[in-house]
């Protein structure tokens, strides 16, 4: 009886059922991984409106492209990251829909007014430095630093080699360091 299995089934098992057209498997995967898609898109794109658009498209592609899923080739999450990142890279060729300045920084509510202002300025500087990175460097940083993927997994997502990923990370971190240090942060 499959009805009892959805909650405990692995992503890969759910994908196997989804390929047969099982909508409930899709719903389970969407419930499990929509957050991941949103988080990744938001980090790569830097704004909420674009992230929502990409996360939604990515989840629908899980359904429409389920036939291209190859069990054993990569984890479901790696495949999903690949869909999200490719959509985000495509979107970045178009202008952003939401100015970055409208994004609110999160500040510790217990901080004093002066400390809160300082923290906001610091976060704004870091955000701008990240925003100025080329989008593939931002994607590599998102995958490896924030999402905890290994170099090999990130290489698969970005369709490059391990050396390629390391090069993207090296350049990203060097550029961030240079920009932030030059502003005294």
């Amino acid at each position, binding site marked *: 009886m499959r009805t009892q299995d959805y909650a405990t089934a692995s992503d890969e098992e759910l994908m196997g059922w989804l390929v*047969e*057209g099982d*909508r409930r498997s*899709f*719903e389970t995967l*969407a*419930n499990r991984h*929509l*957050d991941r898609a*949103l*988080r990744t898109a*938001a*980090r790569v794109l*830097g*704004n*909420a409106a674009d*992230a*929502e658009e990409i*996360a*939604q498209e990515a*989840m*629908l592609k899980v*359904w*429409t*492209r*389920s*036939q291209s899923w190859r069990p054993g080739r990569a984890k479901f999450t790696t495949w999903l990251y690949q869909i999200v990142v490719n959509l985000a890279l495509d979107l970045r060729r178009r202008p952003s829909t939401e100015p*970055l300045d409208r*994004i609110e*920084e*999160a500040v510790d509510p217990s901080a004093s007014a002066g400390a809160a202002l300082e*923290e906001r300025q*610091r*976060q704004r500087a*870091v*955000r701008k430095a*990240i925003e100025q990175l080329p989008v593939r460097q931002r994607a590599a*940083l998102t995958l*490896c*630093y*924030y999402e*905890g993927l*290994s*170099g090999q997994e990130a290489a698969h997502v970005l369709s490059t080699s391990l050396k390629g990923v*390391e090069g993207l*990370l*090296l350049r990203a*971190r*060097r550029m*961030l*360091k240079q920009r*932030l240090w030059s502003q005294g*942060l």
Partner: protein
Amino acid sequence: MTLSEFRRLLEIWGSDPQRWPAGDRERAIALLGDSPEARRLKDEARKLDRALDAMPLPIDLQASARRLKGAVLARAARLPEKPGPRDWLRLYWARAGAFVAVAAVAILLGWVISEPGDPHSSSDDVASLLMRDTSGSGP
């Protein structure tokens, strides 16, 4: 591991040993135990990590996820019952059809403009038409 290799490791993966490639982790940790310079480099790399860690997500994740879940499931419900090879085949045929249509229009246009057998080039014809229009539109 040499100090130079360790510096590069930090520049790529940051200061947290959990992020270091498994193949390098043990040697890097051994170097940290032996070298004050390695520890200094790690502390320096930690500064950038702290700045990255302090960056909030530019999205209210829970609110967005709540809003999107319904939309995703509703859109998926309108998609074909079983996405299969036939859908891909249909897409390829549609693309091939569009390509043939565009190619046919281009060939037809080329034939109409160039008037086969006429030694004059099509660009001359267009230029003379433009000249006639311009001369007739003055005050």
